[in-house]
């Protein structure tokens, strides 16, 4: 292929009076950095550097797995963490590689762009003296018309095939026609590399100005939320955005439908929501599903998962009632779901109005949408065919006031271990079906009122997504032009024949690897000589 590896140094600046070694070093390093070989090495490094991110758990993907890794490898994990092993794609060394690569890319593409623009504006060079030395050659054939007319005919044939063509008159009545085609190859190649830059810029800005939040949303008008960082179970804001930049909208889950195959494999999901897109604006009903998110202005709501929230009513020893709606998190494909109910503000003596910390109540257990008739511990079908709740009761200090944020899906193990929170139900968990009431040892009651579906939602906004997509599409286009194109030159030399008429000779030069060139050459030459050609 015809690629000039060593390009001339970037714009020859006036030479320093004394050879400046620092300058020379700088210039050499720059030339090194922008060479194709370096680009190749960096590209390769990028591939290698991406590997650890698929082997080690990544915090951005699954923080729990990282904690798991810490437990499994307590010695190794902190070291890996320090070198960015759990955040490979945000680590400084990964960034160093791609930033160097893209610096190299700019340093390489800009001069090529300049060269190419110049090439696009210059005419193909005149024919070499000896056409027979070229890879393709057609020996002289005679024509009856004079050289000027023959040259015009050849030029017309070439132009028809969209060659850039120039006709030159030489000495002694000879004419040459020079033609070149395939500039699109280099244009495509430049487009591809520039598009890569656009994608990088898009990804970078998207990271800075985007945000996302995850939220578990239980069905019901009383469970809705309005967009704000505090409403999310987990959220990330880009470095250039703060909480007040989030757009306004409110969302309520009106209905969630899931259909399953007889095997329990999910078939379809659909969430119906009420959305308020403007402050005090109207509520609108919308539906969305797994591959078809809810698109709001500056936010997209994606359906990630679903499950069941258990509704429990606790009646304490003073007859006070509290009702809670508690999402139980599915543990397997059949929706065996785990969760807890914590009632810290119960058993408050109405006379003293003082809370006894040791009379707090908590429940822990599993919810099976379809209980196993054989008595197995897990659900046998994901839909609620035979819903059953299995709970264990605890009384004592839940440890929720200690100021440490505990999980809302598990009781504080520390409190149980120290005996401050005691199990007060039997060895086997209490079995409850919807509507059933459980009387605890101290006369208090727990009623299982039923369930509501919940959906886990991911709300996201990435302002530069269109730029990234546009870049990728243009890049692909450039790539196809570049890989499919062929740069080639053709020349005709037309000399006057003794007496009248002319002799037409042709040569062709493929400037890139192009196996079909011979065929094309024959065709073009045939057409350029026209019907006129071949008169012996």
């Amino acid at each position, binding site marked *: 292929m*015809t690629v000039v590896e060593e390009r001339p140094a970037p714009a020859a600046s006036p030479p320093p009076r004394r050879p400046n070694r620092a300058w020379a070093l700088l210039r050499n390093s720059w030339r090194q950095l922008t060479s194709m070989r370096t680009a190749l090495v960096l590209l390769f490094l990028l591939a290698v550097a991406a590997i650890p991110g*698929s082997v080690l758990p990544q915090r951005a993907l699954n923080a729990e797995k990282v904690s798991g890794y810490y437990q499994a490898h307590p010695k190794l994990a902190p070291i890996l963490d320090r070198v960015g092993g759990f955040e490979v794609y945000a680590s400084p060394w990964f960034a160093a590689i791609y930033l160097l690569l893209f610096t190299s890319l700019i340093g390489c593409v800009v001069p090529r762009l300049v060269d190419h623009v110049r090439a696009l504006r210059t005419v193909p060079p005149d024919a070499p003296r000896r056409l027979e030395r070229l890879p393709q050659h057609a020996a002289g054939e005679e024509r009856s018309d004079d050289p000027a007319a023959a040259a015009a005919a050849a030029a017309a044939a070439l132009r028809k095939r969209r060659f850039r063509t120039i006709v030159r008159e030489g000495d002694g009545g000879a004419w040459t026609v020079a033609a070149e085609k395939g500039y699109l190859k280099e244009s495509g190649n430049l487009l591809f590399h520039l598009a890569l830059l656009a994608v990088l810029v898009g990804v970078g800005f998207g990271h800075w100005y985007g945000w996302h939040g995850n939220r578990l949303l239980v069905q019901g008008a009383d469970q809705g939320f309005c967009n704000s960082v505090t409403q999310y179970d987990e959220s990330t804001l880009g470095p250039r955005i703060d909480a007040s930049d989030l757009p306004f909208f409110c969302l309520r889950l009106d209905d969630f439908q899931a259909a399953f195959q007889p095997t329990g494999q999910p078939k379809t999901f659909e969430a119906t929501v009420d959305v308020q897109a403007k402050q005090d604006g109207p509520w609108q009903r919308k539906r969305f599903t797994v*591959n078809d998110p809810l698109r709001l202005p500056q936010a997209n709501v994606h359906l990630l998962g679903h499950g069941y929230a258990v509704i429990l009513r606790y009646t304490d020893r003073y007859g006070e009632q509290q009702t809670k709606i508690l999402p139980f998190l599915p543990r397997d494909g059949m929706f065996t779901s785990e969760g807890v109910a914590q009632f810290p503000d119960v058993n408050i003596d109405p006379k003293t109005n003082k809370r006894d910390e040791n009379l707090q109540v908590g429940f822990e257990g599993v919810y099976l949408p379809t209980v196993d008739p054989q008595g197995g511990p897990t659900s046998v079908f994901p839909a609620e065919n035979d819903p059953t709740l299995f709970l264990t009761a605890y009384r004592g200090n839940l440890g929720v006031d200690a100021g440490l944020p505990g999980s809302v899906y598990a009781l504080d193990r520390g409190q149980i271990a120290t005996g401050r929170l005691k199990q007060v139900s039997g060895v086997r968990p209490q079995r409850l079906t919807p509507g059933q009431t459980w009387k605890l040892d101290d006369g208090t009651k727990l009623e299982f009122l039923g369930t509501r579906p919940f959906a886990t939602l991911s709300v996201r906004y990435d302002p530069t997504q269109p730029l990234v997509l546009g870049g990728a599409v243009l890049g692909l286009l450039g790539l196809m032009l570049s890989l499919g194109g062929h740069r080639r030159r053709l020349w005709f030399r037309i000399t006057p024949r003794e007496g009248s008429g002319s002799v037409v000779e042709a040569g062709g030069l493929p400037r890139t690897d192009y196996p079909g060139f011979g065929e094309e050459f024959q065709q073009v030459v045939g057409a350029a000589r026209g019907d006129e050609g071949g008169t012996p």
Partner: protein
Amino acid sequence: MAELSNQLMAVTVLAYLAAMVCYAAEYAFGDRSHIGRAAARPARELVGAGAPVPPAAPGEPDVLASAPDEADEPTSSAGTPEAPRRDRGELLGRIAVGLNGLAFALHLGTVVTRGVAAHRMPWGNMYEFILAVTLVGSAVWLGVLTRRPAVRHLGLFAALALVVLLGAAGLIAYTPVGPLVPALNSYWYVIHVSTIIIASGILLIGAVPAAMFLIRTGYDEGRRSFPYTLGAKVPAAATLERLTFRLHAFAFPLFTFGALIAGPLWAEASWGRYWGWDPKEVWAFISWVVYACYLHARATPSVKRTTATWIALLGFATMLMNLFGVNLFFEGLHSYANAGGM
């Protein structure tokens, strides 16, 4: 229907095996066949695009780059004492191609019946994916054969690659016919997966001339130990190299579209982010970068063609890693095994 598909699958593998045996027989008998002779000719035409020689200088024509295709054809054929043997090799070769065609038809039947049984496009799990990739690979191979009969001696290796992959599909990845999980229920499923399948099939066949090119160059350099001995009867190095490039250059944009455009578009619709460094995405990225390295290296004058071709093979290794390693060992959103949740 599912049963039929499984039976067809078994017959398909047998047919490929039979084709492979015939290719092998031709390979063994055919050292004086015209292909063998062209291959064994001194490396005159290797100079141009040939490996160890630095490619043409800038502006200078790649004079011989377009020559070897024709150079593989026989220059003189009559009058050699081995004529009967040559005919036998030729005949075996034709039988091999016929069997290959038959195997392809059976293979197609396997995939179609599977799709009919499942009422959907037959590429919803790893087993079906491999079945589809090898089908494309087989089609591409037959297509290459019709356009360049001279490369038939690669048939042994192409058939070997297909048999190995199909065997792996049947042995480690077999999954009974089942419906799709909702996340896969999207037109992106058709677009994203099919382009990746086609690209992978082409890259699979592309790896065959790539490997044989390396072997052949080693052979031309005088190495006579295994596996270089295999290079004695394959087409000329330049032919192999160019075939490798053409296949890769065709597959790369397809792969770019399937994995880096359609994939992210679907991921955005489904998971909310177009790119999340899920293990499958990581390895697709790695494959893409490595194949880009190959094309880049091939366009870099100071990089030898053998080096570039090694990179192409490395790219294929990363594809295999993505197919087997990631599906079986890493857990992510893509792994079919835990796609049951949602």
